[in-house]
């Protein structure tokens, strides 16, 4: 039966809109070096296997791990590549967890690496491609293939998120100011995270509301940047973890549940309309995770959360769907400072995806930061002691979700 898994280190490359000084391989090696630097007792010989991934369409490279093997230290080592769109990072983390827990002979320590160098390609075209391929859906929407340019706003992430945002706003009766508040909290937090992209220590709600709309209700100032960056997380067994770091972070629950695909609220077959702010998959994901981790009262038991929210409305939505707050109460919590650095349940103190979004890496950076918060080594460390934390990711066309529950105590669910 499966073994208890622990995270012993996490590393990042510096993130920026254009890391044109390095190629993808060198960018990845920065994250790997940072990860190993934080675990001085671990050398390349100690790493038994690799789990990697990115969004292949964005850099125009298929299976870049093949030529990057030497840069990652993966020569003559087992390697598995997992890609699932926006959730790629989360899926890579989960693959790292499974590689350790499976107990394959000779594999104890696994390095999970996720990366993205978006400045090399055209992310909007890449994302619009999510809708492009779907001929039957395009026909249903009355668009021919050469008119897909119209879907650029709809097919790419912002268009999809805008529908989600209006649905959520309708349910919660919030105003744009509530969205801007989330952004301000994130960007100010990002200013204290060394590897973050958009650092704005003095940002105000007025400044955010002063920027133009991209797609109502999302304004330019509310939307995540497109970043270049990489993240690496070191997973190992419970026994080995104790010698590799002071506070091992035990991975107690992982899941990635998908629900039906939908673009613009229509399911892929065109047969049903779906509320993109419902997120059945995310709810099931968190349910499985909490069950595995033995968490009965997430609102009380979770001390810290990193959710994947390129857009502020999503951050509000996810914390509710993942069971951290009651439905429709999240905006109030942001207002009252519950989610701030020194609050009761700090959220996204790294600045979150809203401030740094190297897409393939983003969903791995969430558990990575959450783990560092438990270790007490995060760049923007919360003052209170963090015992249990979650890292979350979403992707696909709003239908994929990943989540990892971590704690400083192992959950011996199998014994």
């Amino acid at each position: 039966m499966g073994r208890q898994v622990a995270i012993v280190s996490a590393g990042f490359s510096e993130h920026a809109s254009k890391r044109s000084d390095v190629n993808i391989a060198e960018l990845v090696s920065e994250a790997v070096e940072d990860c190993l630097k934080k675990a001085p007792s671990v050398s390349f010989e100690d790493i038994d296997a690799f789990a990697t991934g990115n969004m292949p369409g964005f850099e125009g490279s298929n299976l870049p791990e093949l030529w990057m093997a030497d840069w990652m230290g993966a020569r003559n080592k087992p390697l598995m590549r997992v890609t699932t769109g926006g959730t790629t990072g989360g899926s890579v983390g989960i693959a790292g967890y499974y590689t350790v827990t499976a107990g394959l002979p000779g594999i104890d320590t696994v390095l999970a690496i996720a990366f993205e160098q978006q400045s090399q390609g055209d992310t909007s075209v890449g994302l619009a491609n999510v809708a492009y391929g779907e001929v039957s859906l395009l026909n249903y929407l009355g668009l021919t293939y050469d008119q897909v340019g119209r879907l650029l706003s709809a097919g790419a992430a912002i268009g999809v998120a805008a529908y989600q945002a209006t649905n959520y706003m309708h349910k919660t009766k919030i105003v744009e100011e509530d969205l801007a508040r989330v952004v301000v909290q994130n960007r100010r937090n990002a200013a204290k995270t060394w590897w973050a992209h958009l650092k704005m220590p003095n940002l105000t709600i007025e400044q955010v509301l002063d920027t133009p709309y991209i797609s109502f209700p999302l304004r330019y100032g509310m939307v995540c940047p497109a970043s270049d960056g990489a993240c690496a997380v070191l997973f190992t067994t419970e026994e080995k973890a104790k010698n590799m770091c002071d506070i091992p972070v035990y991975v107690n629950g992982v899941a990635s549940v998908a629900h039906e695909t939908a673009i613009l609220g229509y399911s892929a077959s065109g047969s049903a309309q779906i509320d993109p702010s419902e997120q059945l998959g995310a709810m099931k994901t968190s349910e499985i995770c909490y069950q595995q981790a033995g968490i009965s009262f997430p609102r009380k038991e979770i001390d810290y959360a990193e959710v994947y929210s390129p857009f502020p409305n999503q951050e509000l939505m996810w914390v509710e769907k993942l069971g951290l707050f009651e439905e429709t109460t999240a905006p109030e919590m942001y207002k009252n400072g519950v989610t701030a650095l020194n609050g009761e349940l700090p959220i996204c103190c790294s600045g979150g995806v809203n401030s740094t979004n190297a897409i393939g890496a983003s969903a791995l950076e969430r558990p990575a930061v959450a783990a560092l918060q438990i270790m007490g080594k995060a760049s923007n460390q919360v003052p209170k002691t963090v015992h249990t934390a979650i890292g979350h990711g979403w992707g696909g066309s709003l239908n994929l979700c990943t989540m990892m529950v971590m704690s400083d105590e192992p959950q011996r669910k199998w014994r």
Partner: protein
Amino acid sequence: MDKVGIVGFYQVKLYSDANYGRYEMIFEAVRGAIDSAGLKKKDITTAISCTNDYYDGRTISNCYTVEVGGGYMADESKVEMDGAHAVLYGLMRILSGNHKLSLVWGGSMASCFPYHAARLYETDPTWERPVAYVNDITAAGFQMRAYLEKYGVSIEDIAKIAVKNRKNASRNPLALQEAQNANITVKDVLDSEIYADPVTELMVAQPCDGVAALLLAPEKQALKITDNPVWITGVGYNQETYYLGDRDLTKSMSMELAGKMAFDAAGIKDPKKEIDLAEFFEAYAHEEVIFSEALGLVDMGEGTNLNSEIDGDIPINPSGGAIGGNPPCGTGLIRIIEAAKQLKGEADGYQVKDAKKAIASGQIGMCAQNNIVYILEGGN
């Protein structure tokens, strides 16, 4: 490693230009696998898919396959390598104890995209890709010449492998029709069009359309689901360095290391004696020779002397192998299914006698840079 059971599988017939849609094909395979085990969709708690965004021509190629691929409201993920690597992830999920039944499917439609052009995207974009002298075809040309030169093997001996696999494929009803030829000769292979000398057209595993799926379960559950499961007792995977100029192309380092890991797991000391048959993903005929040497089924340089016919010493690719049809992302998975068929005694027309232990392999990359090996054991 605990043994894991293969409790159901299904492969669609391979076509060079299938006359039906991607989703129908995926559904047929997934539904077929679930039916073959006598289970229902709701029994699937985890689904692993294997597709490639470049082969599918779209970003996030797994997001629309959720429903047809059995992933709806299941713990799902996608491995973007070979189907055999996806089986590895499904296997890990069973070994973790988190799941009791895992569905794995993989495949693509090569008729929808220029396969060799898509493979060019795998090359180093900062060095080799702009001039495009290195691609999967020329890499195979280099590897075959390196092998022929080192061991003084004649090209006819390599062509014999292609002949054997194409003859075997003619007995396999699910193989690609274009690859099935019971009367093919060495001369036919050598006279076919030159891809990258010494590689000729009939030595290449032709990309085609197809999807396959299989179901995995832990020992206890597997015995409840079926009377006759096939056990995965060992697995190994490995990746070597990338640049062709850095590698010794006459052998497969990654296959050797992967084999070592798999044999250790399954407790196999002498593969030559213990292994009854092998199903390799040989993208080119010579790879079959290099793989059987790397795994110790035959001594180095002796690969072409091995009698690998269906009634030979160690039958290799009795189903026709990848030369019998190569749906990208599905080929390695089909090798596992074919090996499982042999162990269950269900390989009608190409059954190997007394098959107890088998090897199945998958690969990706130029000259099989990343390899994965399974040890399968049959019956109770």
